[in-house]
């Protein structure tokens, strides 16, 4: 990239060529006010707030007022933000925007973290001159997740541009014209897009807000924020978790340049609040509450019979490593079927070859093949990334016409709707079909064959026509991408994806999505599938099963789970919430959920990331509880010590320690403060009934303080950031100050460390079509209900569709089942049967996890329920 030199308010600057002046200014830390511009959405010039005076060069004395967001940077440009006429324009724009704004900051959730407030203060408008009646709007009920308060709207059009243009939603739009423009739905009802929650952050004022937070409201400055990692799929989005009074009030996006950028999905945002639901707070033996001592004794007795450990794809590396240490490496297994365990191991192997694509890299792809994965259901944020891929070709054509991509609306037009080739090879209708060149439907067991055919075509061998076309497109691309996962319950798509990449060459990338937040971490810890654990129990090599934070029923063949419960003398289950596994366990031990403990997770790229405790004094982390069960205390008193042990036991995972500074890390101001300096009631909020002011609770596992004392904002290293912390900018609009380019990496680099290098993959599992009675399972993935714990969160639960069992009408007729009849799969929960000709014959499609475990390899029986 070439550079241009310009001056801003007399100071010489050098910036990347080809960008707009507003992006460039913010990147330099120059605070140009703006509304309609958004780092991920580009420039449209609607609000007219970013007015600056621009002189084209040394000879242009007069210059002219221009919108910074609509002006390309140019060599020799002289920019004056401080120019009085430009400043006056900005102040008047605010005054105009305030004409109809209700000035209800005191009762508005956004207050204190409101971009409109910030900009109003920044431009100096403070006296109201409009003496007429304001126009008012009716608000809509947009469902359980978001509030709608249209009178606060300043018509920046960010909401529709995000919702429709970026996220592909079609039920939010703008109605009417002139000063009555209205942003909403055709009628009341929940916003359909699984990314709607981002509106709470995209909207620069208080129109859209998090409804749950609004109900249990605390001002932004009265909440303490903690950097956390989403646990609800393998993408590993970075979050801010905001807490007050021991309760997580709200979860928001935390910028990460390679992963989530400015947006997360609703599952992540609202599902994280499951922490309040179905909690396990007390140890239990045989269904009855037990005290710590009795429990410890019972556990010791059970462990003495020899135990297998069953690790979890959603628990931290630390907890899995602790369990592995407790039972011994050879008796440590994964709480998922062997097909899944092996497939994830294979993914790690392919990724270790350096082919892995981050979400950011996905967005840059110019030809895509998706093999089997319903991304919107299994890794929603990745689906959002794939949507941006779809814009690449249009942007390229626009560029040929001299229209830069950042000039958003113009680039869309100039791009003539051109699309890069995207082939979706999935079993059922896919939410991404609208961006697909080829939406090809193949039953799960034929997906890999298609991929192999593409690979064959690429090698010049004979192949079916569709595969040849796709191969052709991938071959012509500069940045081809192949995507696969374990969504269909089969691992062969991963092999096929790898084969396509190999056939394409070095430049081809793979985006592989294992099912859960730490699936890859579990695989790297060397855990084999649940079958091994069952075999060990059945052959008497162990009498006890210790299951750490995993509901087996959700994930594995129910027959296998039954065998485990039958074979184990004692089942010990650790978890934060009641599950179908803890309900049956003999001994139940409560452990921390994501909000109570620090831990490390390995995302789909093989990037280890650290999440920290958002509340203090919660239940102990799984690894701490496990340490307490060991006959000899292992000396893991802190996370840092645990990570040292982990590095010794599993050298592959040693870099995990580097994902964030250790607890001893100090800045000149000390630790990094979770609470902002403005926090009020800090000395009283946790002290009900106590007179003396307590010392803030300590966090042994992080260089973060549960107080306002310490360093704040941008001073903190990226992995420890508790806010964007730019003075005067209190909303998510501050993010661009901390990044290298509007949606580039964070200054100081994006957090996370790869733990893949040097990993050797297991051999692929020979996949054979399951035989016997029943139908082949086809798990249906769903963005809202996709996570075992997340779907319990009260508000998200209201957005989760009812679970489905669907059959092809011919199969239903053969079994003798009718549309709407109550049926169950393998004796599970009964729901009304859906007949759908889109279900491939011989398959039962059913909601993944809830009605059909993820792991394939078995046949499922569909029967009428009484």
């Amino acid at each position, binding site marked *: 990239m070439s550079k241009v030199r310009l001056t801003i308010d007399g100071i010489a600057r050098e910036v990347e060529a080809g960008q707009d002046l507003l992006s460039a200014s913010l990147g330099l830390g120059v605070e140009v006010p703006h509304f309609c511009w958004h780092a991920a959405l580009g420039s449209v010039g609607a609000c007219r707030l970013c007015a600056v005076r621009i002189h084209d060069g040394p000879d242009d004395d007069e210059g002219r007022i221009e919108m910074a967001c609509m002006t390309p940077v140019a060599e020799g440009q002289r920019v004056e933000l401080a120019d009085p006429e430009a400043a006056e324009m900005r102040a008047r724009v605010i005054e105009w925007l305030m004409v109809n704004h209700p000035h209800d900051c005191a009762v508005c959730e956004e207050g204190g973290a409101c971009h409109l407030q910030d900009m109003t203060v920044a431009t100096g408008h403070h006296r109201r001159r409009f003496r*007429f009646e304001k126009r008012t709007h009716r608000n809509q009920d947009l469902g359980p997740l978001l509030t709608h308060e249209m009178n606060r709207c300043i018509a920046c059009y960010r909401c529709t541009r995000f919702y429709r243009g970026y996220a592909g939603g079609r039920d939010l739009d703008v109605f009417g014209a002139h*000063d009555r423009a209205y942003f909403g739905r055709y009628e009341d009802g929940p916003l359909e897009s699984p990314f709607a929650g981002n509106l709470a952050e995209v909207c620069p004022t208080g129109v859209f807000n998090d409804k749950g937070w609004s109900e249990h409201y605390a001002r932004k400055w009265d909440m303490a924020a903690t950097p956390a990692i989403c646990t609800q799929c393998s993408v590993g989005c970075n979050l801010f978790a905001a807490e007050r009074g021991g309760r997580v009030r709200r979860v928001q996006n935390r910028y990460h340049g390679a992963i989530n950028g400015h947006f997360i999905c609703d599952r992540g945002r609202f599902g994280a609040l499951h922490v309040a639901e179905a909690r396990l707070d007390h140890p239990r033996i045989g269904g009855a509450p037990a005290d710590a001592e009795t429990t410890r004794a019972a556990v010791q007795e059970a462990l003495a019979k020899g135990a297998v450990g069953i690790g979890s794809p959603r628990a931290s590396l630390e907890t899995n490593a602790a369990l592995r240490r407790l039972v011994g490496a050879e008796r440590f297994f994964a709480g998922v079927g062997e097909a899944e365990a092996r497939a994830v191991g294979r993914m790690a192997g392919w990724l270790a070859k350096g082919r892995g694509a981050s979400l950011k890299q996905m967005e840059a792809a110019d030809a895509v093949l998706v093999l089997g994965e319903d991304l919107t259901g299994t890794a929603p944020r990745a689906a959002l990334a794939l949507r941006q891929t779809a814009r690449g070709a249009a942007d390229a054509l626009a560029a040929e*016409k*001299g229209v830069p991509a950042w000039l958003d609306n*113009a680039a869309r037009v100039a791009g003539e709707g051109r699309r890069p080739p995207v082939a979706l090879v999935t079993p059922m209708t896919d939410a991404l079909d609208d961006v697909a060149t080829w939406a090809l439907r193949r039953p799960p067991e034929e997906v890999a064959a298609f991929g192999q055919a593409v690979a064959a075509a690429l090698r010049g061998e004979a192949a079916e026509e569709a595969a040849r076309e796709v191969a052709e497109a991938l071959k012509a691309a500069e940045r081809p991408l192949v995507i696969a996962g374990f969504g269909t319950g089969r691992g062969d798509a991963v092999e096929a994806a790898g084969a396509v990449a190999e056939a394409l060459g070095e430049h081809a990338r793979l985006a592989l999505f294992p099912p859960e937040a730490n699936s890859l971490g579990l695989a790297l810890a060397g855990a084999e599938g649940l079958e091994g654990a069952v075999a060990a129990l059945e052959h008497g090599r162990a009498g006890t099963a210790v299951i750490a934070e995993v509901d087996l029923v959700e994930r594995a063949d129910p027959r296998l789970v039954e065998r485990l419960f039958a074979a184990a003398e004692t089942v010990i289950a650790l978890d934060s919430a009641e599950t179908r596994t803890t309900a049956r366990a003999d001994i139940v031990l409560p452990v921390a959920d994501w909000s109570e403990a620090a831990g490390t997770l390995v995302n789909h790229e093989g990037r280890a990331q650290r999440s920290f405790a958002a509340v203090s004094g919660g239940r102990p982390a799984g690894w701490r509880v496990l340490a307490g069960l060991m006959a000899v205390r292992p000396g893991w008193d802190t996370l840092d010590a645990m990570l040292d042990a982990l590095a010794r036991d599993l050298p592959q995972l040693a870099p995990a320690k580097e994902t964030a500074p250790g607890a001893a890390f100090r800045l000149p101001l000390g630790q990094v403060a979770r609470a902002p300096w403005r926090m009020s009631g800090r000395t009283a909020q946790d002290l009900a009934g106590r007179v003396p002011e307590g010392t803030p609770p300590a966090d042994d596992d992080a260089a973060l303080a549960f107080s306002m004392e310490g360093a704040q904002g941008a001073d903190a290293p990226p992995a420890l950031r508790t806010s964007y912390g730019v003075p005067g900018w209190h909303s998510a609009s501050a993010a661009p100050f901390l990044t290298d380019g509007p949606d580039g990496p964070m200054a100081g680099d994006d957090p996370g460390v790869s733990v893949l290098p040097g990993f050797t993959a297991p051999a692929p599992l020979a996949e054979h079509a399951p035989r016997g009675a029943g139908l082949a399972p086809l798990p249906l993935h769903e963005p809202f209900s996709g996570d075992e714990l997340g779907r319990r969160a009260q508000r998200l639960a209201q957005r989760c569709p009812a679970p489905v069992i669907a059959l092809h009408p011919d199969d239903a007729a053969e079994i003798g089942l009718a549309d709407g009849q109550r049926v169950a799969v393998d004796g599970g929960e009964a729901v009304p049967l859906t007949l759908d000709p889109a279900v491939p014959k011989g398959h039962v499609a059913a909601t993944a996890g809830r009605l059909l475990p993820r792991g394939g390899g078995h046949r499922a029986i569909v029967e009428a329920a009484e």
Partner: protein
Amino acid sequence: MTDKPLTGRARPDRRPHTLEEWRDLGGYEAVERGLRELSPERVLDMVDEARLNGRGGAGFPAARKWRFMPKPGEAPGDGPNYFIVNGDEMEPGAFKDRILLEALPHQLIEGAILAAYATHSTEIIVLIRDAYRDAIRNVSRAIEEAEAAGYLGRDVLGSGVDVRMWVHPSAGRYIVGEETALIEALEGKRAVPRKRPPFPAQSGLWGRPTTVNNVETVSCVSHIVANGSNWFQGLSRTQEGGTKVFAVSGRVHAPQVIEAPMGTTAAELIEMSGGVSGNGVLRCFQPGGGASGFLEPDALEVPLDFGHVRAAGSMFGTGTLIVLDETACPVGVIARHMAFYARESCGWCTPCRDGLPWAAKIMADIEAGAGHLSDLDILRMTVQVGGPRGRAFCDLMGGAMSPLGTGLDRFGALFEQHISDKCCPVARDHGRAAA
């Protein structure tokens, strides 16, 4: 050849000519000559030499706009070039395109075919405002006739050129007349203007090279091709070519459409319209429709064309005069204009969406005698901050500020009197404002 080439052939009852009738009047000869004998470049050069300035408001030279249109295969992407005829005509005081559309559709089609030929366009779309139902009907029928006669369709007159043409009725809103908003409307979206650059010739309808011209501009083209550039240029009294279809309304005895040489003065046009009505004494006039600044009697002898009117401190715009005698109150006229522009804002950009309604509310109050002196600060602020080009997203806001700004400058005392006397001083002193 008449001195009124554009309107001279219109029937008094405005019934459009059939194709046969039109051909009897020499119709389609220019198309035959143009497509058979002239290259697209030659047609373009002729229009250039004729100094045809766009009649839709900005006065941009038509040929210069056409030269931006790439030849087939030159532009990136796939698809045709488009030529669009702008028949939205919703500017207050404008009614000149109506006669050209209603009574003279074949003249428009001829011009459009030649313009399409010169701009390598194969698709012609005529956007006509909803209220002009006769125009929509007449132009549509004339297109059918022209198609049947082989002037439109495949391989027109054996030239190898395919040209399709159809009418798109607007669903209503003034902003649809803004050329980039018009393109959005044709794409089935809200008529929100687009950023320029990229200009429509780079990226217009569906991202394809596109030219938009006003109905009157297009109606001139066949005459230029038929009679030559010099003839057309010679019709004018000034450096800008052709006649102009003026329209005069407001306080004149016989408001009407008048085709006269470019450079005709307001004095002449008012005279031709039966003279000033009311008390017969001119107070002021807008020379170019609602979005043009006020001029006073000292400008009566200014030759009306884009250059001269600009030099006189206003804008020639659509060339449609709104006349006020001494018993007519400019504050009332401005109040009507502000209400209109506020209502017609597309709602995209802040100055226009929120600034105009505020100004409109103030104007309504002032006119009704309920204004405050401090209101004038807001009005002046709105003009100063929102008026200059580039402050709002498109030119609607700037257009709206022309009458307000010039009104405040020229008739400031009247504004203040409204406020201090709490009534309209003009109505009070001259009786009710009635014709």
